[in-house]
């Protein structure tokens, strides 16, 4: 009944070779790798800037840089970490993992995927080149409040605006790709409520990105027209309103911070059940909590602006809405603890990072709750307390989850186990130093040190020095991480197909390690 024919060729072709492979690739794994490397380079670049900041703040007095350059450093550090390190890392993880997790052959729009990556190196080159231009790099903080960023800004601001546009375009294309992939390309049987939480949180994240990116694009374009084309959107002299800039910025910016934490929730929800050898507690409540965090994120933006002189009614509303976010976030934390409860836990490196995430993200959440209480925010606002808060959320939150994800999935990506001993050293080194770095900043903030100042009064000296020491140690730990990454890629103990004893999900159960270049040309059946 069957007749032998010429051998089939199309399932087995691997990547092309040479540099052009990376330029022209449309493979989700290649693009994921590119994104992850870009974000690592950006992490080290932004980290180097943080080192400049911490070195200047090591002692009172101006030692190393002049105040304007210091402001450029805080600005560039913020922009590079947000748009260059954290977001591309999550997009890279999405590229690698979403098709494998939902049983799709690739991302839905492979060519657009390639463009959305290759825009980024240009955007960041342009942004970084302003450092060497006449007038200096933008020095108005990553929040670029008008009129400091319009009427009073250096000419390089135009490059900054263009760079932000490019980053926005890239993010939007990435988000559209994720949405199209998740909606259209799930394997048979992969219903929405069976999707891994990482896929869910990315779907919600992508939706948030799509909703807010036009706002950012509009804001920077209005800055541009204010600067050059005689409009007065943010210029009081022409009837505009500088405070409205902040409203617009934070309408984008607040969902943006959830964009940077929601995929982290997904990662942690994958890792903890694996190492507790117990299914995730409250899967559906996790999904609903993520969705409600996303919805609430649109309604709380002005809690960044309690001191701008809003009407009392507005302040009350934003205070109530803000502290409400603690409920769904709390549900997530409780669910993770309940997942561990009566599990059978082991503590491999990914689990350590995930546990570090849960503890320190919770600390960041607590200070977030404190900041949400409007009258007290009068004292916290724009101090190091805020700096401590968002670094607990973004470094020990978002960045920790990314590092956890690396250790968790790298055996699947490369087929090699990372060095467990080095991974553990990396974790403890980072965790101790990151707390030495950021915990004292709570105290400096409460004691009254404003943020974004290059020099400070003497009563802040001790804690700043401690914080700087922690900063240098933490920075060094990430250089060590680079070594671990390279070592793992080059070789190491071979990983099993399932990698972890308790691992679940298509990528572990249906694919070998390393995952083949084309994973699911043919959809797997999901039970």
């Amino acid at each position, binding site marked *: 009944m069957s007749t032998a024919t010429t051998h089939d060729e199309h399932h087995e072709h691997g990547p092309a070779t040479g540099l052009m492979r990376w330029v022209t690739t449309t493979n989700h794994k290649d693009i994921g790798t590119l994104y992850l490397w870009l974000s690592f380079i950006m992490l080290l670049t932004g980290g180097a800037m943080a080192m400049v900041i911490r070195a200047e703040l090591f002692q009172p007095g101006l030692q190393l840089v002049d105040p304007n350059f210091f402001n450029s450093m805080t600005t560039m550090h913020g922009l590079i970490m947000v748009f260059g390190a954290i977001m591309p890392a999550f997009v890279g993880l999405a590229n690698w993992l979403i098709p494998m997790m939902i049983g799709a052959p690739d991302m839905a729009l492979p060519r657009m995927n390639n463009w959305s990556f290759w825009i980024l190196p240009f955007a960041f080159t342009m942004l970084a080149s302003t450092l060497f231009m006449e007038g200096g790099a933008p020095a108005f903080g990553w929040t670029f409040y008008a009129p400091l960023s319009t009427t009073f800004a250096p000419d390089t601001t135009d490059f900054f605006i263009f760079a932000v546009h490019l980053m926005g375009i890239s993010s939007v294309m990435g988000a559209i790709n994720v949405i199209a992939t998740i909606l259209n390309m799930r394997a048979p049987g992969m219903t929405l409520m069976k999707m891994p939480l990482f896929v869910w949180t990315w779907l919600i994240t992508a939706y948030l990105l799509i909703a807010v990116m036009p706002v950012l694009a509009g804001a920077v374009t209005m800055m541009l027209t204010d600067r050059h084309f005689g409009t007065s959107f943010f210029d009081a002299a022409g009837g505009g309103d500088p405070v409205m800039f902040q409203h617009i910025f934070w309408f984008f910016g607040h969902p943006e911070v959830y964009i940077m934490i929601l995929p982290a929730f997904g990662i942690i929800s994958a890792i903890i059940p694996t190492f507790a050898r117990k299914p995730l507690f409250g899967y559906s409540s996790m999904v609903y909590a993520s969705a409600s965090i996303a919805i609430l994120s649109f309604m709380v933006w002005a809690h960044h602006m309690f001191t701008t002189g809003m009407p009392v009614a507005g302040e009350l509303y934003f205070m109530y809405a803000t502290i409400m976010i603690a409920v769904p976030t709390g549900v997530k934390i409780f669910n993770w603890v309940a997942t561990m409860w009566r599990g059978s*836990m082991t503590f491999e490196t990914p689990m350590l990072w995930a546990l570090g995430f849960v503890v320190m993200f919770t600390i960041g959440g607590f200070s977030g709750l404190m900041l949400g209480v409007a009258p007290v925010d009068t004292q916290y606002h724009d101090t190091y307390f805020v700096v401590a808060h968002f670094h607990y959320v973004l470094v020990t939150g978002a960045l920790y989850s990314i590092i956890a994800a690396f250790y968790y999935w790298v055996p699947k990506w490369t087929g090699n186990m990372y060095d467990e001993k080095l991974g553990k050293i990396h974790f403890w080194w980072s965790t101790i130093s990151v707390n030495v770095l950021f915990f004292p900043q709570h105290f400096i903030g409460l*004691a009254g040190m404003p943020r974004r100042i290059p020099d400070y*009064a003497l009563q802040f000296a001790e804690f700043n020095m401690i914080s700087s020491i922690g900063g240098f140690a933490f920075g060094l730990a990430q250089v060590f991480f680079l070594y671990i990454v390279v070592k793992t890629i080059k070789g190491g103990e071979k990983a099993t197909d399932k990698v972890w004893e308790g691992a679940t999900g298509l990528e572990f159960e249906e694919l070998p390690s390393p995952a083949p270049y084309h994973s699911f040309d043919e959809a797997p059946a999901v039970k």
Partner: protein
Amino acid sequence: MISSRLLRRFFAPVLAFLSFISMSSAHADYELNMTQGVTPISHQIYDLHMIVLWICVIIGIGVFGAMAYSIMKHRKSKGAVAAEFHESTTVEIIWTLVPLAILIAIAVPATATLIDLEDTSEADINIQVNGIQWKWRYNYIDEGVEFISALAESSRTNGQSGVADPTGNENYLLEVDKPIVVPVKKKIRFLFTSDDVIHAWWVPELAVKQDAVPGFINDSWAYIEEPGVYRGQCAELCGKDHGFMPIVVNAVSEQEYQEWLVAMKAEAAAVAASADKEFSMEELVAKGESVYAANCAACHGPTGAGVPPVFPAITGSSVATGDISDHIDIIMNGKTGTAMQAFKTQISDVDIASVVTFQRNSLGNTVGDMVQPSKIKSLR
């Protein structure tokens, strides 16, 4: 409420050790907690801060305790076998509703405090505060007393660049040339606005932090209970010298306040009178040099070289070597859309006349003309 002493006792050994190994040159006067402040509002805010902090600590102990217990007991190496449960509607409802109740409990006192904080009506004294890059202008509206307050030179060993050694300078970066003086036990209303970018006026002990937005006014208030010197800083990034625009509030008795007002008015009259005097070129250039150092050198550089293109050079500039009336105009009224401020509201007629003369006849410029303070006075 537990004071910061407990925290301090806990951290003191750690700190002592770290200070020891780091051979810190700066001296220790550190704080661990928010100031209680000296106004009724600042006390309320402090209490609220402590309530929320302790709620967080208690929840934290619960969550981290459960986590720690489970990490200790439910580990595979101790032979733990994973349970199967993965949901419980009851538990999930409880841990949604309990936090909700706690949040409502926080919201009630927070609402009360916020409403008090925003009630600026029926003030005894009104002070308008204008933020200027990088100083503050205070205007006692009802008294007609107006002056500029900037970082005192003594408080800034080297504010621009190079090596600074603040050791031993007790109020490093926190001292101003002219503090504002206010009476205790009076309701003081502050009205904030800005001449250029957004600044924020913050004095922690007064629990006042309010943005100064160009073109808009905001207000806030303070009722100071104890006399004293209260220091603060600008809290909103406002450009290069954002870190160098401190605030000093000198709270005194009503009587001392009245005496101060009289003295301020007399001083203003004396400055105005001095404008009618005739000065020689040498006198003006000599005086102009110090005015330049205090007001212009921050941007245009001590030698007049500037930082082009943002801060143009004075040496050889078309303004400083061109028509003198344009030169005066730009110094008095500033230049819209740049960091160049209107100095007529900041420095006296004599100072303007001398700095104009200085800039035209020094820093490499040799125009040879001069302007008398009386001319400046006529331009006000």
